[in-house]
């Protein structure tokens, strides 16, 4: 079923709420996904990403609100949705005691299709693990497992793909390859909804939603989100990074301060603070080799900024 070109939204989600015994996991989630785009749901562990995916793939009933996938309601039309959706859970969920080929064949058969029929769709991915097709799935490496899982999620030619943290726990090379595959799938008209805790993957999506504590803080293109960041942002480095973060937070005019790898990122009120004042303040506290630079915000800065609001 190809719906690209039609005006049905791939996903429409309105005010979806879900709680696990009074602990809210999703609060009033509303968003739409267009046909053929890569939509990223980005947020830390425990933000509610998997719960959202499970609601959209008809595995979990929402407490309130409505959701539809490819125009079909997740409650009433769950049977139809299951035929058209590919889902790759965050955890490797294939049969470890069956071989690579057997796993693929099972899922092809359950969707009333064959490996041959849709081979063109998985060729790029599957050809990499095909040399190991008689190996049991449990004996594959992490990256190969993900490739097999993606092949199994694609074998019935779904019109929309839900990938829950596909890059968690795999090496940087496999991560890069996986994103390349997603771009290729997009070019074949498949809508992709992907979640990730890695902020650096945000720029690879067409649009992203930043999620925290079960709430979407912002939905926009990666560029749109970055351009929405209007604060003055500096990166600060010094010889004693761990002491520096505490001292930075004490300085008047420093609004927020977070550790970002080998830098500390601070947002400042530039009406009362200049780089020179900050440098002298830090030198008073005994810091040296201080480097202060004005930088462009990244997605992570935006996330922190939104989360802090």
């Amino acid at each position: 079923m190809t719906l690209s070109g039609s005006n049905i939204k791939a996903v429409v989600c309105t005010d979806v709420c879900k709680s696990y015994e009074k602990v809210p996991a999703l609060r009033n989630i509303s968003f739409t996904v267009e046909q053929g785009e890569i939509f990223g749901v980005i947020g830390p562990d425990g933000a509610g990403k998997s719960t959202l995916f499970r609601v959209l793939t008809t595995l979990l009933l929402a407490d309130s609100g409505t959701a539809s996938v490819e125009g079909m309601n997740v409650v009433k039309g769950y049977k139809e949705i299951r035929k058209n959706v590919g889902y790759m859970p965050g955890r490797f969920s294939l049969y470890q005691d069956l071989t690579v080929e057997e796993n693929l064949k099972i899922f092809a058969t359950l969707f009333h299709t064959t490996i041959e029929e849709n081979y063109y769709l998985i060729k790029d991915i599957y050809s990499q693990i095909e040399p190991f097709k008689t190996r049991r799935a449990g004996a594959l490496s992490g990256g190969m497992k993900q490739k097999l899982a993606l092949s199994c999620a694609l074998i019935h030619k779904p019109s929309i793909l839900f990938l829950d943290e596909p890059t968690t726990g795999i090496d940087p090379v496999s991560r890069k390859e996986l994103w390349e595959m997603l771009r290729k799938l997009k070019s074949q008209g498949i809508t992709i909804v992907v979640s990730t805790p890695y902020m650096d993957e945000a720029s690879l999506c067409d649009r992203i939603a930043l999620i925290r504590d079960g709430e979407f803080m912002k939905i926009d293109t990666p560029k749109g989100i970055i351009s929405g960041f209007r604060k003055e942002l500096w990166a600060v480095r010094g010889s004693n990074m761990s002491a520096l973060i505490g001292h930075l937070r004490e300085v008047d005019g420093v609004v927020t301060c977070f550790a970002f790898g080998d830098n500390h990122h601070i947002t400042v009120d530039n009406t009362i603070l200049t780089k020179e004042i900050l440098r002298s303040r830090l030198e008073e506290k005994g810091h040296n080799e201080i480097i202060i630079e004005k930088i462009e915000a990244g997605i992570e800065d935006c996330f922190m900024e939104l989360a802090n609001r």
Partner: protein
Amino acid sequence: MLKYLLEKEFKQFFRSSSLPRMVIIMPFMAVLIFPLVANFEIKNINLAVVDNDKSTYSQQLIQKVSSSGYFRISDVSDSYPQALRSVELNKSDIILEIPPHFERDMAKEKSATVLIAANSVSGTKGGLGSSYLAGIIGDFSNNIRSEWITASDRFSSGRFEISPQFWYNPRLLYTYFMVPALMVMVLAMLCGFLPALNIVGEKANGTIEQMNVTPVNKFIFILSKLLPYWIIGFVVLTICFIVARIFYGLVPEGSLATIYLFAALFVLAFSGFGLVISNYANTLQQAMFMMFFFVLTFILMSGLYTPIANMPQWAQYLSNFSPLKYIIIVLRQVYLKGSSFSELLLPFAVLSGFAVFFNGWAVLSYRKSS
């Protein structure tokens, strides 16, 4: 669809390292080994003898006791304290003390007493052993009395003899009684335990989630879990029949068709019970523990090892809730008594009730959890 799912189940089953072997070993263990160890007939009771009389009669009595097959003379002492010592050392289970002047009293007073003292730390051995011994001694005194009667006046008094007949199990073989019931236990383990553990395993591995997003019908999915174990269950039951035939010459008096029919009904009921467990358990550990709890209760309450009539009243009521009770009754009756279906309508009705109850519960609790 079902065909492919079954193919997958069988592949997984035969690929696992232990399951196929266990399934073959289990019926042999159950039918060949268990009846030998789970035997309540007491043999080889160690007997300490204190013969204070050393007369013909006392020798005859000891001879009779030791040739009965139940006792082994482990100790011959001169005094009771010495014999007691051998009980304390765990060398003897029962003491038989024959008093001095045993023969003289028998002849003079027409009666004499002997002392039986039993170590009751092992209740069955002490209790059964001393009653066997009492029986043998009673027999002995009857024999002597009848000798006197024939010697003196054969018309003076009437006497009677009891000769029991054991119907359906003429040689009172414990194995004949146990084997049909043990077959049920094997069936319960295979068809109740395994599918439930399999489903919980899929839950724990997350594979059930991947299955749930496919258009596979839930009913078909569950059927694909049950069917292989039903088939395996019947194969194993058949192995049990063959083993019982070859090693014990035990052939059902009734028809095999009746047994298979009831086995099918029981398997349906018990796998329904397994499904209920699988709906409430999220990990294999939980499922295992719940299964053990209920299956042990069911087995102990079923009359497999101890007759239900021996249980306290409240336990007899409870035993009505064990599906194993009914199928064990059926198997024993068909195997030993040759009962036909028309005589087993009550167990049939009850087992059907269990099947509806457990499977209905399984369906309802499954809906709730998803």
